């Protein structure tokens, strides 16, 4: 817990907060230029999200997969890998979960649902491990292979749905067996049928797992060492290649879980998709906002989910086009990436504070 306290007082916590504020201000300026009232817009946005239980539940539904794909990106990044393939891993995990959830009959819920979730995690992991394996054995840049695997994943997912589970006359799979659903019915009823599900709890647990694994275990130590300095890791006797594959596998599991939750908890079926849903890519943005820290990513998802979900309210009650929110999100990411600008803005506030320097 000490680490968390330390993190809050550090630059790494202050800078994103300021970046977020600057992003919101920039969005407000854009609204003013467009002739909208930013205060009305932002309050409409917040009212939409936190105004009634249904919308609140739906906003949480929006945030959950972002936590998972955000961690997928961050986990690989901690090991020095740029996993841009969260999208493909998300879809493959989703498809695996759908197959298990639709095709297996007569299992009790306490076996069927976990089985479907595990299938999603494992297949998402394996999909990512392909990129890891290619990098480890053949030196293929993971960015290239991940991008290709995203497309293969999209069409493979559609193929599986089209050929094995298509609901007659519809562009989607058959419904999953009720025993595989992870929706929380009683809570959902309380929240006006918002699609809340157990995936959110699993996502929070996964964040704890991420933290403990990365910073408290022997294997996490190896992954971080490899991420920082492959040469020193090799010198110290670590198997760099195995660590690369391992990091990608675990990273892909996170993304695969995100996909599973969408089918098992939210939609109860899988659509045939004309294009990628983009959750994997949004995860990259969330990981950037959260500075690749699992708890930061949860906060990042809350922000990202709030903005995205609330943007509908903004357009509805303040008549501001929802695309403005994309500008805000883009600006936030820009300011986080361009820390120099934020530091420059902060300069008058803490001129006394200096960076840690060589002794």
């Amino acid at each position, binding site marked *: 817990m000490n680490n968390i306290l330390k993190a809050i007082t550090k630059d790494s916590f202050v800078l994103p907060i300021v970046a977020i504020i600057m992003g919101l201000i920039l969005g407000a300026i854009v609204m003013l230029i467009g002739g909208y009232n930013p205060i009305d817009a932002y309050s409409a946005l917040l009212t939409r999200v936190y105004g009634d239980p249904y919308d609140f539940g739906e906003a949480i539904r929006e945030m959950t997969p972002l936590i998972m794909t955000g961690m997928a990106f961050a986990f690989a990044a901690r090991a020095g890998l740029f996993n841009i393939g969260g999208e493909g891993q998300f879809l493959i995990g989703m498809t695996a979960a759908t197959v298990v959830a639709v095709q297996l009959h007569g299992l009790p819920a306490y076996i069927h649902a976990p089985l479907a979730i595990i299938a999603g995690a494992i297949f998402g992991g394996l999909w990512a491990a392909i990129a890891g394996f290619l990098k480890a054995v053949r030196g293929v840049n993971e960015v290239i292979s991940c991008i290709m695997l995203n497309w293969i994943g999209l069409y493979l997912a559609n193929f599986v749905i089209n050929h094995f589970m298509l609901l007659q006359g519809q562009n989607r799979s058959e419904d999953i067996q009720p025993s595989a659903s992870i929706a929380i019915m009683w809570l959902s009823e309380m929240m006006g049928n918002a699609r809340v599900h157990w995936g959110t709890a699993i996502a929070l647990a996964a964040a704890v797992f991420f933290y403990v694994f990365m910073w*408290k*275990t*022997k*294997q996490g*130590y*190896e992954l*971080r*060492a490899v991420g*920082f*300095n492959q*040469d*020193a*890791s*090799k*010198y*110290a*006797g*670590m*198997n760099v290649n195995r660590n690369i594959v391992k990091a990608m596998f675990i990273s892909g599991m996170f993304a695969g879980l995100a996909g599973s939750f969408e089918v098992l908890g939210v939609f109860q079926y899988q659509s045939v998709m004309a294009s990628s849903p983009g959750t994997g890519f949004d995860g990259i943005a969330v990981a950037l906002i959260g500075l690749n820290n699992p708890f930061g990513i949860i906060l990042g998802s809350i922000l990202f989910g709030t903005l995205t979900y609330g943007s509908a309210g903004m357009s509805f009650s303040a008549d501001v086009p929802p695309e403005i929110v994309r500008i805000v999100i883009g600006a936030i990411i820009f300011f986080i990436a361009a820390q120099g600008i934020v530091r420059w803005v902060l300069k008058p506030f803490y001129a006394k504070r*200096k960076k*840690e*320097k*060589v*002794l």
Partner: protein
Amino acid sequence: MGAATPVVELKQITKVFPGIIANDSISFKLHKGEIHALLGENGAGKSTLMNVVFGLYQPEEGSIEVNGEPVIIDSPNRAIELGIGMVHQHFKLVQPFTVTENIILGSEPKKGTRINYKKATEEIRQLSEQYGLQVNPNAKIHDISVGMQQRVEILKTLYRGAEILIFDEPTAVLTPQEISELMEIMKRLVAEGKSIILITHKLKEIMQIADNVTIIRRGKVVDTVKKSETTPQELAEKMVGRNVTFKVDKKPAEPGSVVLEMANIVSNNKEGTAVLQGLNLQVRAGEILGIAGVDGNGQSELIEALTGLRHVDGGTVKLLGQDITNMSPRKITESGVSHIPEDRHKHGLVLDFSVSENMVLETYYKPPFNKGGFLNFDAIDKHATRLVERFDVRTPSIATHARSLSGGNQQKAIIAREIDKNPTLMIAAQPTRGLDVGAIEFVQQQLIAQRDQGKAVLLISFELDEIINVSDRIAVIYEGQIVGEVLPEKTNDQELGLMMAGSTAKRGAAHE
């Protein structure tokens, strides 16, 4: 030069970093046409002071005068305007660019909208001739030697009109020949009216070339002396703050049984050329075998082959009679090999890990550090605290990132870790590179202590003095082979130098 206005005068410069006063009220004068050495241990505050002069840091207190005028240097650009140029220890060159392109980078002469290469090349050629630098303006950086690259850095400052040149540890990366050439260049520069600040911790160079010496210890000026009125002994004591013995104290070696045996080692590089060509050597328990050689004759490859980082294509490596050829680095470490790597940033440390994480880099998977897959931070921290105390690693805390430590303390941390593993064979590659007298003494004593405990020590170094002073036996490496063996008390620089340049009979001292 007496009463003349100094070209640069620092008045009571104080620079504070969190938890440390890097410069404590430092005053310093540089006169026209002099070479003024700035001497101090690693972490004494030399580099900080020069970064203040070069506009990279702003001092908390004090003022700077250039040619008697008070100035504020808030950026390197401002420093360059004032005629101050810096030759950095790590060159800042674009490898695939030519010399000319590198030099004009950022201040390109224009002809209309296009860069006037012709004019630039001509100017650079003239400068190069004027100062005897012999640089070919059209050569690409990656094709020229390290010594030449440094001259390009010097040209870069001259091209921008520098009158005052700061050299930051300029000889750290050079071969002995290149060092003496650099000395000539520096003399030529001052003869042409330039003034030089030389940051160094090498007393030999100061005695050779400096006019005046300012000694800094722990952020404070200890003294400023004329070279002609001092001795290396006195300088060293002022720098370290205690008595320093240049003679390495050691008893005669008592070699025991053979610990390491390398027989007919062949290893090829990616292109298939043999970089180790049938190398043979033996190291016994209780002795230090020094490997002397010019950089690039297979030293790095020898270590890599020995530690499992490079594939051995022929021959055998035996440790205590056991074949360890082509075993994994971890197996080799576990069989009793410790290794102080040549490049501490690349191999020795994970710079973004804390000191305590670095202390278990090779042992984190073993108890007590690993408890059922989880790291036992109590044990790790205790281990680190013990090593930091025993080997006097100066760090604000064991949670500090290794990156924030000075070079000498980083090296101490590595040595602590490697010695603590209690190896049968200790490989020390360039263990004192970039360290100051005090730290060098420490490292060498540790190596000798290892030997006295009956360990076999393999020492690879480009510093002939070190090889001669520390080793019990010297093997000379040339083009991937051991070409001869001598005893340190029966040889000298000359003989070794000739052997290092190929065999005396075959090629003589011809090089380049």
